């Protein structure tokens, strides 16, 4: 199973990051990996910046990683990619969801949403992919599947697309949302070459 892989998911409270990491970790466990996952609850949920770390391999010790150690950063929101970029290996990979959410100083007009974040990251990390998961989810008929589109992209980027993800979706989402989420996952996978 090789070396332990480190994944960092970042975004904003309410974007469905917890479910996304649950889908990923369930698939990994079904495939026999040891998995550790770390989340922070509490104040972070009040519209603040949120991250989840997922580590998998043959045997995983620490549930958390430090700066410069994530193999992949998957960011559900543009500015959050910048905030957490320091955690990515310089040779690592970044997947950015082209979706902007203003924070309090921006909403009140005290600050502007930063421009050029994606370009700057792409200039620093060679392996940067931008996806428009919101549009893809809208086209699919439910913008709330945006998080699953992103997980699909992540799964493909990890080379794990051949696991039984349909089964994972069935065991992690409500029955009436199973079909649309399976579609969302496939659409996400197709975004990564």
């Amino acid at each position, binding site marked *: 199973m090789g070396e332990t892989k480190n994944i960092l998911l970042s975004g904003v409270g309410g974007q469905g990051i917890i479910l996304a990491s649950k889908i990923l970790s369930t698939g990994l466990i079904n495939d026999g990996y040891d998995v550790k996952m770390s989340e922070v609850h509490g104040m972070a949920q009040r519209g603040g910046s949120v991250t989840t770390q997922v580590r998998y391999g043959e045997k995983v010790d620490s549930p958390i990683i430090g700066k410069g150690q994530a193999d992949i950063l998957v960011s559900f929101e543009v*500015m959050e990619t910048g905030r957490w970029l320091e955690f990515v290996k310089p040779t690592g990979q970044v997947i950015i969801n082209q979706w902007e959410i203003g924070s309090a100083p921006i*909403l009140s007009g005290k600050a502007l949403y930063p421009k050029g974040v994606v370009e700057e990251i792409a200039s620093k990390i060679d392996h940067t992919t931008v996806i428009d998961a919101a549009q893809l989810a809208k086209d699919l008929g439910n913008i709330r599947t945006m998080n699953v589109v992103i997980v699909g992209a992540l799964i493909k980027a990890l080379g794990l697309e051949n696991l039984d993800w349909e089964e994972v979706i069935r065991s992690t989402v409500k029955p009436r949302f199973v079909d649309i989420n399976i579609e969302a996952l496939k659409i996400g996978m197709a975004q990564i070459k």
Partner: protein
Amino acid sequence: MKKLMTGNEAVARGAYEAGVTYASAYPGTPSTEILENIGPYKEDIIAEWAPNEKVALESAFGASFAGARSLAAMKHVGVNVAADALMTMGYTGVTGGFVLVSADDPGCHSSQNEQDNRIFAKFAKIACIEPSDSQESKDFIKEAYTISEAFDVAVMFRMTTRVCHSKGLVAFEEREEREIIPYEKQVQKFIVAPAHAQKLHPYVEDKLKRLEAFSNETPLNREEWYGAEIGIVTSGVAYTYAKEVFKETANYLKIGFSNPLPMDKIRAFSQKVKTLYVIEELEPFMEDQMRAAGIACIGKEKIPLVGELSPDVIEAALLGKKSDFLSVSPDKIVPRPPTLCAGCPHRGFFYGLGKKKNLVVTGDIGCYTLGFAEPLNAIDSVHCMGASISMGHGAQKAFKKHGVEKRVVSVIGDSTFLHTGINSLLTVAYNGGNTVNVILDNRITAMTGHQENPGTGFTLQGDPAKEVNLEDLVKAIGIEHVKTINPLKLKEVDAALEEAFEFDGPSVIITRWPCALKRYSEKDIEEFGPLENQCQVIEDKCKGCRICTKTGCPAISFDNDKKKAFIDPNQCVGCMVCLQSCPFNAIERVVK
């Protein structure tokens, strides 16, 4: 079968498997999910929310006194509230196995300090067990009950945020049913009158010696030997970080039973290695005791005492290594502080309060702590549970005594009021205070993720419960000026504050409206009605004054190009605070 679980979920499972029949807690991050996950074992375990941690600990102690296995859970600062009961439990011991879960928060992820409660275990003369991951959180709980009953000792089960909230795979076992230990009256043990306490103390000191002998033998303290020259004494989640960094280039003495420490085992380990590191989070709890026992080691002179550890912190501290990383330029990142949610009932109240001049506002612990932040700027202090009302009382008395013309307003949530605020209000009434006390009653314990409390009408396990009437309660305490208002109506807020300021004597304002994220009960729907409105900006009327953004609602943004406000229909729940704030009637109500 193996399941991916948080440490908190694993503790709940462990308590179930250990045959626990009674558990009590007050919610507090990172401990809350322990009781939430015990709740569903309703057939086997009574799980209760207590009004505060002292009550939780005493209730669980009572169940142990009666002969049952019991558990109390709380965050680290909750143990301060429960300390009076805990310190004497060291003397009395237990009957049925007793475990206190203390969930510490290195790094202050969601706390006011980062105290290390292992020191409490030593201070209280009780045993301390520290799990490193989810599997141990389950397995060690079961050990804790065996130890508790074998040594007649309370056990502190010390977890930290990363153990509580990290997930790992956990293998299940069956529940072991336990008969209650037959009750025997033991006055010398359980009545801690001075004559008895004097006899209990030497007994406790002897017990600690027996526990130390056990500590040297138990597999909870285990050596992992790789034939290296470096030795590492470590405990809790720090063990997983140390392994991550050193892998098989060091030997480990993993301490799972940390009070009393296995000093003989540590000494024997230290003699087999060339360099001895002590890797522990927060205080030098093990290190200080090792040094006092004459064991040379390297610890806090290199490893930070402040904040949480992580593999990279340890790597930098001990090996001088740093991973390369890249950053974006600072202008690409705007802070994203937590905010009150769209539709939060606290917003209307703080918006009104923030406009009043010459006030000092003492706050408390809960979502409403965020009332201090921009743009509301409505709170001056937040200290500990219940302190708003008592600090406000003392401040008002001092201002008056020294001729300072300031009014004091104390704001506190419903659950926090019932936790310890009620005691503080007694001093206000009894000692002739003159503060305005505001109970922000959002019908739930919100910040920790919606737990029931004595004011909500339901128990932890979902049964209907007696519901405290806050108005009657504060009147019974002796508060004469009491007003209940809807905090979403700005005129009501303003009028209630003005009336309270004019009243000569202490007053209470109760703002009664549910948390915007609360799942309404049938009674809630009857009282507060279904939510069906939304607000919308009428662009022609909007003058771009930005007053609506001063409410701090995350659904409202200001378009700097158009110079108009915008309300996000995906977030707005129609509380209509912004509509009332707009001086140009440029916000209208629309049906969703």
